[in-house]
């Protein structure tokens, strides 16, 4: 439908669309989001209230931040399913430095980022230098990082964080909750990084055709390591928000989150095979998933049916997308 419409649009607009190849996809995804909001505004009471919107956005900020990281990893042609365990390990370290050992919150936040960078580097090194397929690497580190988190933190819950951290979770700036600001900055940064920096272009090239990129003089190993480092840093950022929102940290945090994030990114149109990363699509994908879940909840649908709706939507959207581009991606 979009392509038919494109034939009729004026040449000037057509040129702009050619300059932004992701635009039709983004418009379609945005249409799906609007449709969903429209449906739920009829079925769910109070769906349009400001507090519901704030809640949805705040909850989703974690998935948006992780989605930016995963989009970049998928763009370079790799995958990371260990982010939930990175969150568990980082949350444990944050809790131990601040609560158990009583260091100031600045040290705790620094330690969280160090954990993220360390985990991301380990994934990147094993993938790019040892050259084990990333799905296997992160399958292993999924277990390994979670094991480390359990070893460090056991099953204790650490609570009562300093006011600054609590402010990150539940405070607001100019009337907008802090997590939304952080997610906004992450998306903006991710978009500019991927589209408008040289490294971002290199990452896309490596994901599109690794051999061609290598022959063009791009250091593919460094590119892959950078992508995993970004994923690690984004996981650390998400950890801080999760811990701050709950005012508690525990080693089981983030368990199973990778599937939700992967679903959001795929809904947004990023290719699983590399070479195409749509940061804004991942933002929309994360919002679609949250709105679907919250909307069904407010419409009084039992939680279990929500699962079926989420899974069905994921398969349906990708099936429609693939049926529309039969020339590419025959797998």
């Amino acid at each position, binding site marked *: 439908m979009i392509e038919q419409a494109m034939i009729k649009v004026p040449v000037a607009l057509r040129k702009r669309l050619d300059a932004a190849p992701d635009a039709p996809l983004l418009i379609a995804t945005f249409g799906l989001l609007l449709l969903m909001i429209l449906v739920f505004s009829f079925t769910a009471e109070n769906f349009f209230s400001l507090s519901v919107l704030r809640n949805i956005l705040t909850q989703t900020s974690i998935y948006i931040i992780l989605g930016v990281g995963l989009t970049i990893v998928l763009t370079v042609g790799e995958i990371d399913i260990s982010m939930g365990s990175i969150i568990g390990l980082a949350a444990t370290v944050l809790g131990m430095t601040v609560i158990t050992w009583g260091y100031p919150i600045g040290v705790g936040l620094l330690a969280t980022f160090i954990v993220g960078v360390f985990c991301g580097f380990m994934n990147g090194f*094993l993938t790019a230098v*040892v*050259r*084990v*397929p990333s*799905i*296997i*690497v992160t*399958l*292993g*580190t*999924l*277990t*390994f*990082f*979670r*094991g*480390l988190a*359990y*070893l460090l933190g*056991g099953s204790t819950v650490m609570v009562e964080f300093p006011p600054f951290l609590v402010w990150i979770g539940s405070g607001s700036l100019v009337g907008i909750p802090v997590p939304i600001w952080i997610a906004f900055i992450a998306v903006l940064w991710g978009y500019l990084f991927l589209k408008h920096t040289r490294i971002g272009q290199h990452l896309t090239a490596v994901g599109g055709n690794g051999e061609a990129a290598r022959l063009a003089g791009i250091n593919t190993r460094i590119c892959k390591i950078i992508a995993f480092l970004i994923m690690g840093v984004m996981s650390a950022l998400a950890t801080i928000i999760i811990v701050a929102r709950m005012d508690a940290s525990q080693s089981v945090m983030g368990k199973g989150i990778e*599937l939700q994030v*992967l*679903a959001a990114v*795929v809904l947004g149109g990023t290719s*699983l*095979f590399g070479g195409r990363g749509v940061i804004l699509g991942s933002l929309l994908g994360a919002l679609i998933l949250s709105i679907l879940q919250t909307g069904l909840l407010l419409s009084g649908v*039992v*939680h*279990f*049916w*929500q*699962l*079926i709706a*989420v*899974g*069905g939507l*994921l*398969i349906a959207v*990708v*099936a429609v997308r*693939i*049926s529309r581009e039969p020339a590419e*991606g*025959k*797998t």
Partner: protein
Amino acid sequence: MSFSSKHAEPDQPRSVMQKLLDWKEAYPDAASTTATAFILLALLAIFYGVNERFISLLNISIILNQTAAYIILGVGMTLVIAIKGIDLSIGSIVAVSGMMLGLLLVNNDFPVWFALIAAVAAGSLCGVANGYCVANLRVPALIVTLGTMIVFRGVALIVLGHDILFRYPDALLWIARGRILGLAPSVYLAALVVILGFVMLNYTSFGKRVIAVGGNEEAARLSGINIRRVKFTVYVLMGALSGVAAIVWVARLNSTQASVATGIEFHVIALVVLGGTSLFGGRGLIIGSLLGALILGILENGLGVTGFSSFMQQTVLGLIFIGVVALRSWQARRADP
């Protein structure tokens, strides 16, 4: 070496080395399967050194019984990975098949044979859904099975809620608790699945087609193989085997609930990879997966017997997995740079 062995005089006695090399050519998987077997033996030796009770008839029969479901699922996953696919939904399929068993045997009094058929049929039906989406709608397998993993679990949750169904009839429990020559019937069932899987993959035309589709899909299509049918069949087989695994699982635990076997897919993929099957398709090592499942079972049991905490177990499992896979990819690059 192969050149000289081919042109050797017929009456000239061939050296042991040449025979070995011929054997290696005829069975290219033998080398990596042997390597996996060595890892298994090394683990056995280590655990025996730490605790002599580890290698007793009783403990070995316990390990085999615990591993039976993994072995059955591992055979199916080997086929799926051989066609360059993946199936994340197997844990949820086990839950759906287990739900079927519970509904028919605990909530109603259906005969056991009927319930067994129904459980495998339910698993196959889930496999049909996966196969249709992958083969006919051409949605990437990772996405399809990520979606159906959530959907099938949702079905089990809608039907069972948070109920736990238990008190199964003795005839079902016999599958995991009976003894034939000292081993549980589930172990023989797993052995049967391994043998059938091995013969099918290596000695039937369907097996050849599976390898062809996984190795080079375009070439397979051009040589007249019905790719869709091969993919579809493999996912249905995976579903059916998940049903069989659910039977073994439920019989061992004597209970079903909707959350059963959550997260099992990662263990099963890990054991297939440990066994040497490549995630890039075109190669399937059934015996390797059997050994991989045993390694996993021995690690879990052995770390428990030798007194590691369950926290430590997970860390060690992850480390060993990464180490073995890194070593294997390093080896592969040295052999074929």
